[in-house]
């Protein structure tokens, strides 16, 4: 009896294996197809994307970069969403900051956004790995695995990240955004991957912003950085941001 029982069990297992083989081949085939298809393009570690902002050219009261970012990525005035959030809660990927020398009264305006640090504090503290840095230095949030804990917002010394507090419906197809996730400047990664410049740089009417590869000594930005005096904001923290400012 027990032998019969074992036999039928073996028979069942055999059948089950056969069934699996019928269901599974699609998945196996896909893996092989993907592996062959893989192109060597995509983000490259030989590059490090960065920006140089000339604060002497940045015009007081101008918000070209902010509105360009809003239109490109669908937040603030570029979206009909977030009507329930108060101004302190609303997303802010880029903002203008005015700094004033207390002794002379001289003021300077500059755009402030994610500084795309080489050693980002937000990536260090992220418990899920959602906060990540691409090999070309662009710091992003993988919203698929972001749990909305906001540790990164606490860790960021530049106050660059925002949290979405309400359901959204009016997103741009290149900038997915949603309730319960943290977001920030992506350096317009969807444009950069196609060889374009970030929206803020393109729309800056005073030509105060420059974008390029910091690793390439022949890029315009590297030549300019070698020529002019520039600084990183809160350089004392040793995070080595990719955004540099001159004239402050």
């Amino acid at each position, binding site marked *: *009896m*027990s032998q019969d*029982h074992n036999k*039928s069990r073996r028979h*069942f297992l055999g059948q089950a294996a056969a*069934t699996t083989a019928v*269901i599974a081949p*699609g*998945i196996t085939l*896909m893996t092989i197809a*993907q592996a062959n298809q*893989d*192109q060597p*393009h*995509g*983000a490259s570690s030989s590059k490090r994307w960065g920006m140089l902002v000339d604060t002497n050219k940045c015009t007081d009261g101008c918000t070209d970069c902010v509105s360009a970012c809003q239109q490109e990525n669908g937040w603030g005035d570029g979206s009909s969403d977030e009507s329930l959030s108060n101004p302190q809660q609303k997303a802010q990927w880029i903002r203008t900051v005015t700094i004033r020398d207390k002794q002379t009264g001289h003021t300077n305006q500059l755009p402030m956004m994610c500084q795309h640090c080489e050693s980002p504090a937000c990536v260090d503290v992220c418990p899920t790995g959602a906060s*990540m840095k*691409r*090999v*070309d230095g662009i710091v*992003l949030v*993988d*919203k*698929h695995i972001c749990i909305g804990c906001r540790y990164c917002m606490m860790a960021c010394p530049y106050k660059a990240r925002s949290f979405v507090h309400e*359901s*959204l*419906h009016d*997103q*741009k*197809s*290149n900038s*997915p*955004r*949603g*309730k319960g*996730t943290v977001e920030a400047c992506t350096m317009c*990664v*969807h444009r950069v*991957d*196609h060889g374009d410049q970030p929206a803020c740089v393109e729309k800056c009417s005073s030509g105060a912003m420059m974008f390029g590869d910091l690793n390439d000594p022949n890029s315009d930005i590297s030549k300019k950085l070698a020529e002019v005096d520039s600084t990183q904001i809160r350089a004392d923290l040793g995070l080595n941001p990719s955004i540099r400012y001159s004239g402050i």
Partner: protein
Amino acid sequence: MLSQMLKQISRQRVTVVALVLGSLMGYASIAQSGDRDGVRSSISPNAGDSCVRETSWMRRNHMELLQHDRDRTLRQGIRSVDGSIKGCVECHVQQDDHGNTVAINAENQFCSSCHAFTSVSIDCFECHATTPDSVKRAAK
């Protein structure tokens, strides 16, 4: 006594196996028959001749493709992928009688019709755009 118990157990086991196999086959037949019971295949005029994979394959595995390629796009910056949700929306989105584009997750639209039929909730459009950019959206 013991053999009777064993017999009973093995009979129960056969029933369970039959039930499991039956439900698997039922699912497979649903996945293969797209045009029945209100589950329709809607292809917009923007679409080309065919999907990125066979339709029958896509019906079962589109989520695997999307999940695989989302990581390649986001983390590695590889944007020429088959599993692009933007691509899904561009091809499968429909227009209403006034020429306005209807959100792809609206009732009876491409994504939602199948997902409602199979009782699988769809989270993609909590974040992702439901219509291509620069089109006139239909009022909700």
